[in-house]
């Protein structure tokens, strides 16, 4: 049985700046990293392999240089890496992206039963958290989002028990397979690749599936298939902070100053 992990290569957002003139991201020279949440998804799929003997396939949709990210996944121990890359896939929003990924999972399931699809909770560039649920919807799978612990997978009864991490509480849930799981970062500590695995990954095959292989209607994918369009990206204006008084010299006076300032701004009522 197969676990399919979907990962995304994202620009290192701490290094991305917005061009105030054009309202676009300055991506030049910014290194790409695996979306931090997806590293945990990948780790969880490898743990499922260790615990229950699943085979692990990893999918990533993106430009051809996404291959580097897939090789990292191979170095960590995934069995199969598939790159979904085609100009027709470009400019996709979450709807169009989930269509391509869902189709890829469906194609994989033709050869081998897919038990679990794992994604990170969200990506750090788009922050929508929609692609995982989108895949589940398109495939008609159950979905468990925000999972922080997979307690058990019962392959005979075809069900999974997991814990979801919600605001201020946990939820233990059981679901039928196949299921889509999106994970939070606290689910695990990712492993580190050994050198023999890295060297193996350098020469391993990364399978390319373009739209000739996938055969999707170009009108339903990429920019054409997207329901949303980004009009403008901008950094919110932020007032510069100020230092009130001299706390080191006279703490009491500084606190007084702060209180009066807060009252003045209507943030505090005395």
């Amino acid at each position, binding site marked *: 049985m197969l676990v399919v992990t979907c990962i995304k290569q994202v620009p290192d957002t701490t*290094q991305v700046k917005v061009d105030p003139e054009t309202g676009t991201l300055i991506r030049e020279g910014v290194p790409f990293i695996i979306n931090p949440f997806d590293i945990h998804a990948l780790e969880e799929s490898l743990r499922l392999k260790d615990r229950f003997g699943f085979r692990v396939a990893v999918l990533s949709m993106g430009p051809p240089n996404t291959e580097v990210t897939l090789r990292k996944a191979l170095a960590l121990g995934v069995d199969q890496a598939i790159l979904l890359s085609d100009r027709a896939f470009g400019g996709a929003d979450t709807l169009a992206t989930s269509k391509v990924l869902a189709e890829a999972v469906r194609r994989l399931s033709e050869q081998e039963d897919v038990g679990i699809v794992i994604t990170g909770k969200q990506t750090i560039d788009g922050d929508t958290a929609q692609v995982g649920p989108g895949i589940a919807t398109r495939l008609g799978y159950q979905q468990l989002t925000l999972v922080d612990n997979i307690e058990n997978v019962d392959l005979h009864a075809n069900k999974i028990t997991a814990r979801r991490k919600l605001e201020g509480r946990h939820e233990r849930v059981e679901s039928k397979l196949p299921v889509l799981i999106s994970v939070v970062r606290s689910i695990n*500590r990712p492993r*580190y*690749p050994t050198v*023999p695995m890295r060297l193996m990954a350098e020469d391993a095959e990364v399978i390319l599936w373009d739209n000739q292989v996938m055969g999707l209607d170009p009108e339903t994918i990429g920019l054409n298939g997207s329901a949303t369009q980004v009009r403008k990206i901008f950094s919110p204006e932020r007032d510069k902070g100020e230092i009130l008084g001299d706390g080191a010299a006279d703490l009491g006076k500084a606190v007084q100053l702060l209180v009066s300032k807060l009252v003045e701004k209507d943030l505090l009522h005395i």
Partner: protein
Amino acid sequence: MSPNVTAFAIVFAAAILFFIWSVYRRFRLIALGQPDNRFDAIGRRIWNMLFFAFGQRRVVKRTFGINHFILFWCFIILMIANVEFLLHGLFSQQIALSKLPDGTYHTLTTVFDIVSILALVTVVIAMGRRLLFPPSYIDAKSRDAFFILSMVAMLMIAFFGLHGAEIANGVEKAEDYMPISNAVASGIFDGVSTNSLDTWAETFWWIHAIVLLGFLNYLPYSKHMHVLTAIPNCFFKSLDKVNTQPREGFKQGNSFGAGQVSELSWKGLFDSYSCTECGRCTDICPATSTGKKLNPRLVIHDIKVNLLKNESVLTNSGKQVSLPLIGDNHEGSVSEEVLWACTTCGACMEVCPVFIEHVPRIVDMRRHLVEMKAKFPEELLTFFENMEQRSNPWGIAPTERIKWTADIEVKPFEAGQTEYLFYVGCAGALDSRARRVTMSTAKILDTAGVSWGILGKEELCCGDSLRRLGNEYVFDRMVQENIKMFEAKGVKRIVTQCPHCFSTFKNDYRQYGIDLEVIHHTELIDRLIKSGKLNLKSERNGFGNIVFHDSCYLGRYNEVYEAPRHAVASATGHDIHEMHNHLDKSFCCGAGGGRMWMEESPGQKNINVARTEEALANNPKTICVCCPYCMTMFEDGLKDKDADTNVQVLDMAEIVAESLK
């Protein structure tokens, strides 16, 4: 006196055959180690052997070593006497010293007589020291040590017994030239009958023969193996200072680091045979002395035990007794906790009389853990990922590397336009405290009119910690990227303010064939002072008493000792105060070898606190350092001792910059 030749020939042949067999068994294991060329530059190697083995240069650095020096030379001289003794036993008619001309014979007998009593005295002193003043860092009362000392003593006693009896019997023609034996003859054998004297002489002869042959055969099975290996080990010693490790070849199918004893270099195995268990490495190790499990002597000892215990597996001739090289809590295995405790400060290698290379062995085993097993203390995971993704230890965005240039004008490095590349380093660019040092260095360079530029956002980490932590694969990739950039930009001369960047570029990058002139800021600043390019106030200027800390990677690794001392003295008009452990005996701050990025394993004390206490013993107002790691460790140490309000930590560059007129 001549023994029964047939009886002796049988004993002799049996002893020699057994000895050859033992030595063969031991040395055949050495041959299983990995290749390591130690046969180049024979001339220099012979000189090293004469100077360090026969000259006992390092042995006599500690006072008690003089006792060993004397015993060593007694042994060398008595070797002539003992060879003659054995040959005479076999060919009593043909070979005898007494056949030499009288003058030569008399001189030799006098020398042997005096040397034998000297040897006996040194043995008694050595036993007395072990019994009465046992040093904490050796296994003073080990059975092995007393057994071998007793054997040496018995040899000497038998020597005097034999010659005393012969003199008393009137058969020794050199009797007037052997004062000690003569005294034995008149003191003990006076009035004894000729027959009895013959028996005494024969008894002592046999005791001497059996102890001598027994001694020879005991060597390969004890720590006294060093009698056979220490001299060649000085011949094989690394020709440069051991301040780096060899590269690894990253090809599929290779194995990385040392997970079993035969994956160490043959020199590493030979080292383990050469250990005399003198304990000097233990005594000076900052980890050992603060109660960590690491004891450098035991690391070497465990390698030896592992090698011997795995003999049958390694030579494929017997049952499987695979004792793991890296494992917990038994003799012959080095635990992971021990391996991660090392700061790679190199103090152990600096004091070892026979040049055992402890640190490279520890890094070999770390390499195995990191590269083959991906097993390391968990705090290193973030460190490794930060290094791979952002090329700095904290994972800070590379754009932040130019933050310190916000208020001053700094040129980018450009070949032809700027002479030096000022390689700011991760700490110098990204750590807020170290940035102040960077500003000081920049100010000094500008004042002196030095032409310099930086790589800015493009600067990458040098990779020092990665290499010391055994993550050679990522280090290798990083070096290649750096070298590509240096070559593309035409970088030839680099000034660094971190001893780790300095040593890594200077020593480690050389293995990649790049020719860089690397200079530490302490050296460059001192050079500027000496050439009169900096006008200094030469007054205390609020620094008060300055105590100086030698960084391991600056001092011990690269022998930069004088420059920072001279620069501070010029800047302040006063010499620095030395800590108890200084120069090549300096005590690590605790951050080297990647320990900067790890939690300290439990011990009696943190290394940085121990070192801070040592600094505070000098009652300083300022602790002067030359390294951003040392800076952090001392500042933390002062906080721990509640001394951070009275004592400041300053980099040498800050003191000089403050003292500019």
